[in-house]
């Protein structure tokens, strides 16, 4: 049998290049009405009155009074209303839908609605903590008192907007007492649970179907639950299908983004220049509702010591509620913020100590068997030294680093080291998700994968089919994987957290092994597998200690930049990466994930600027919020090193989020090397670089 990593063609490429695949906005649904959202224009206010124009026949207003169940979107904290109640808490908060046949008439109605507000004082700063966590490893307090050298650092990261090319869209249909919601999404069962709660009906009266999804990156993790509930309520009230398709402006203004953060470090360094203890605090801006922010905070906090072993670690964090658009899941989920911060800090500590940064970092680099930040263990081999040697050889790092350090050479090179915990944090898989997958062997000897995981461009269908086909030793063409429909597939969990290949793929591999043993030609056979946490994983939800993840993927990146001496624009010259993702199930798919993720990370660190003024997002379109074009992409050289994880299918670990994590710190360190100044925040814009150079 050939190596599993050898690439095959994806099942959906043909329909995508020819434009024949149907995204949600392409679907023709008989009798469907259009909907548009009336939104709050105030950052915080009480709604005192809503005055409506005359509503023509065939047009409808749908608001909170139409929600038959609970007017709350089920996420983790049920704090976000489906439609605003008395108080609006951010600009863009949905108040009601206007539904009807003609979009021009809908717009006229929306323009004619007068909402009267009584303004309340909004909060935009890190003031109102709504979640606080802390955890402790060792006992570091004494090192902060015994005369050790204390070094501090404070880092800031900005918003990041997903800009999946397909804006959010969803359709609700209510027929014969049953609600069906079809749309662009990552997590069909999240939406199902949310719609059940909002409609207050039985579980079997809600059906969710994924349409082809034009990119997501976390942006279609929890947000579609909100609009899924809205169209479910609207279609139930009106009795006709309701389409809610966002345009780009609405999408940018009102959907979730990556949390801005403020991260503070304090390290105690002994006379041998080793960090003995470290204190870290993370502040995340959740926006107006908590949503997933608590879980994002946990992932950020757990990454506090990066890839380094710090024996005494004290980490705390807060989610601060502000009157801005709610933030949420975005590829990396808190880790990109923390890895930028820790990679800068560790380099800054080395610099203050007058040490060679490579030597200093290498001395602190985690080794197999050592304790993780949360006091769990790195059980599996860590091959970072090999990876680092490789990337330095590929990029000629040492020579260039020295050469570019010369004053007034505006070229620079930087290297980031990082890891990503695969799957849900802590006991999430075991306690909350409880994934189930099924394989059904049909009479014609094809095999259908029954799982709720979605294809959103990352190649999940192809990869998961390959795993099943590989174990069964049948051609991949005989394995079928359709867009999930909750009436047909069990809840194998959401398509998030770098869990799809490792966790769901692992279950598929186990089911396929069983099926192979029971295989009888011409008969239908159904196999079911349920997730079981590896025995070695011990995690305490209260103290946030133990094994936060069953496995870790690792990466190293080198970025080479040139800063324009006149405009301070950062030109990315070259990017290199070496990765340990266990085993690539399909090399070309993985390289696609790596190159795309890396560019998102590099852009997060440099050009992607989003900010708010008085609670309003100032960037309204891709004209204002700049993402890289083909002209901004640099050559990328990638090496994937096999380091099979015993419990992963074919040894595979997670790979979806990892490549984004290293981009920003690599490029920020390269900018430092180019300009000879410490970069303390991202995005490192030309304006910021100018400020650094002028504040000499």
């Amino acid at each position: 049998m050939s190596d599993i990593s050898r690439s095959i063609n994806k099942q959906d490429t043909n329909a995508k290049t020819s434009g024949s695949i149907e995204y949600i906005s392409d679907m023709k649904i008989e009798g469907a009405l259009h909907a548009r959202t009336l939104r709050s224009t105030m950052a915080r206010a009480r709604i005192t009155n809503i005055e409506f124009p005359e509503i023509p026949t065939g047009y409808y207003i749908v608001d909170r009074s139409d929600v038959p169940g609970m007017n709350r979107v089920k996420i983790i904290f049920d704090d976000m209303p489906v439609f605003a109640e008395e108080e609006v808490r951010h600009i863009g908060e949905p108040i009601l839908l206007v539904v009807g046949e003609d979009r021009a008439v809908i717009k006229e109605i929306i323009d004619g609605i007068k909402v009267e507000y009584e303004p309340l004082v909004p909060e935009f700063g890190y003031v109102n903590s709504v979640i606080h966590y802390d955890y402790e490893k060792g006992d570091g307090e004494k090192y902060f008192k015994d005369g050790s050298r204390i070094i501090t650092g404070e880092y800031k990261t900005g918003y990041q907007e997903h800009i999946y090319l397909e804006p959010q869209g969803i359709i609700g249909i209510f027929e014969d007492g049953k609600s069906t919601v079809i749309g662009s999404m990552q997590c069909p069962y999240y939406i199902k649970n949310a719609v059940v709660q909002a409609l207050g009906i039985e579980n079997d009266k809600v059906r969710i179907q994924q349409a082809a999804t034009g990119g997501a990156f976390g942006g279609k993790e929890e947000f579609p639950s909100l609009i899924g509930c809205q169209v479910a309520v609207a279609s139930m009230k009106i009795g006709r299908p309701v389409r809610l398709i966002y345009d780009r402006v609405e999408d940018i203004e009102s959907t979730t983004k990556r949390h801005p953060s403020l991260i503070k470090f304090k390290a105690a360094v002994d006379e041998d220049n080793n960090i003995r203890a470290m204190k870290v605090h993370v502040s995340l801006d959740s926006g107006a509702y908590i949503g997933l922010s608590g879980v994002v905070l946990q992932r950020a906090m757990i990454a506090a010591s990066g890839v380094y072993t710090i024996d005494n670690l004290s980490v705390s964090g807060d989610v601060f509620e502000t009157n801005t658009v709610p933030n949420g899941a975005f590829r990396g989920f808190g880790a990109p913020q923390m890895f930028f911060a820790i990679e800068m800090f560790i380099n800054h500590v080395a610099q203050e100590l007058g040490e060679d940064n490579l030597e200093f970092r290498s001395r602190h680099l985690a080794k197999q068997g050592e304790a993780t930040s949360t006091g769990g263990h790195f059980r599996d081999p860590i091959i970072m030294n090999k990876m680092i040697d490789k990337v330095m050889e590929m990029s000629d790092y040492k020579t260039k680093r020295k050469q570019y350090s010369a004053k007034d050479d505006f070229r620079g090179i930087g290297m980031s080291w990082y890891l990503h915990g695969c799957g849900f944090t802590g006991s999430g898989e075991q306690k909350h998700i409880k994934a189930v997958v099924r394989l059904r062997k049909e009479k014609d000897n094809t095999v259908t994968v029954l799982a709720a995981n979605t294809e959103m461009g990352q190649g999940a269908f192809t990869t998961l089919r390959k795993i099943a086909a590989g174990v069964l030793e049948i051609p991949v063409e005989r394995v079928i994987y359709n867009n999930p429909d909750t009436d047909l597939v069990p809840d194998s969990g959401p398509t998030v957290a770098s869990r799809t290949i490792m966790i769901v793929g692992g279950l598929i591999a186990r089911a396929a092994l069983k099926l192979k043993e029971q295989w009888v030609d011409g008969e239908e056979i159904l196999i079911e597998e349920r997730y079981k946490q590896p025995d070695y994983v011990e995690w305490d939800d209260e103290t946030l200690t133990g094994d936060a993840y069953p496995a870790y993927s690792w990466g190293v990146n080198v970025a080479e930049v040139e800063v324009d001496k006149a405009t301070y624009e950062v030109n990315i010259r070259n990017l290199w990466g070496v990765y340990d993702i266990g085993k690539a199930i399909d090399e070309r798919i993985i390289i696609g994930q790596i190159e795309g993720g890396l560019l998102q990370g590099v852009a997060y660190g440099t050009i992607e600027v989003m900010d708010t003024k008085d609670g309003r997002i100032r960037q309204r379109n891709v004209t204002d919020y700049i993402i890289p074009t083909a002209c901004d992409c640099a050559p990328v050289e990638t090496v994937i090193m096999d380091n099979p994880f015993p419990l992963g299918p074919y040894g595979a670990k997670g790979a979806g989020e990892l490549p984004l994590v290293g981009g920003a710190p690599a490029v920020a360190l390269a900018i430092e090397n180019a300009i000879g100044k410490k970069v303390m925040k991202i995005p490192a814009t030309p304006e910021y670089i100018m400020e650094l150079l002028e504040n000499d």
Partner: protein
Amino acid sequence: MTEIEFVLNGKNVTIDVDPTKRLLDVLREDFGLTGVKEGCGEGECGACSVLVNHEIVSSCLMPVGNAMGKDIVTIDGFSKTERYRVIHGAYEDEGAVQCGFCIPGMVIATESLLNKNPDPTEDEIKDALSGNLCRCTGYNMIVSAVLRAAERGKGLW
């Protein structure tokens, strides 16, 4: 309402329509050509690219009135051609397609480039694709696909 006549994917068509309606909406709604995508509605992302007299145009910026007498090709029509077959094969073999939402526009941009310049350099390709945003791939695989299409399709353009 005005009667607008143009050639659409090789056929003469006439439509009675508000001439200020966006060509994008006319193509998607009146002709059902949903291969043309709306990504931004402001001419920045290129997902709605079509060929107008063989020039690449963002159909979200063009009022249908301006289509009068023009020759318009969308992905739905272009996908029936030999040139498409070569471009598709190259995109597939390079793994250049992820979520796919930008891809019909990218394919149109590829055709538009190769039609003018059958043997482009890497920089020329990047420049030609710079009006088409992709958030998934980081572009390198798409650039490689265009290079490969040019190489395989010698004589077609």
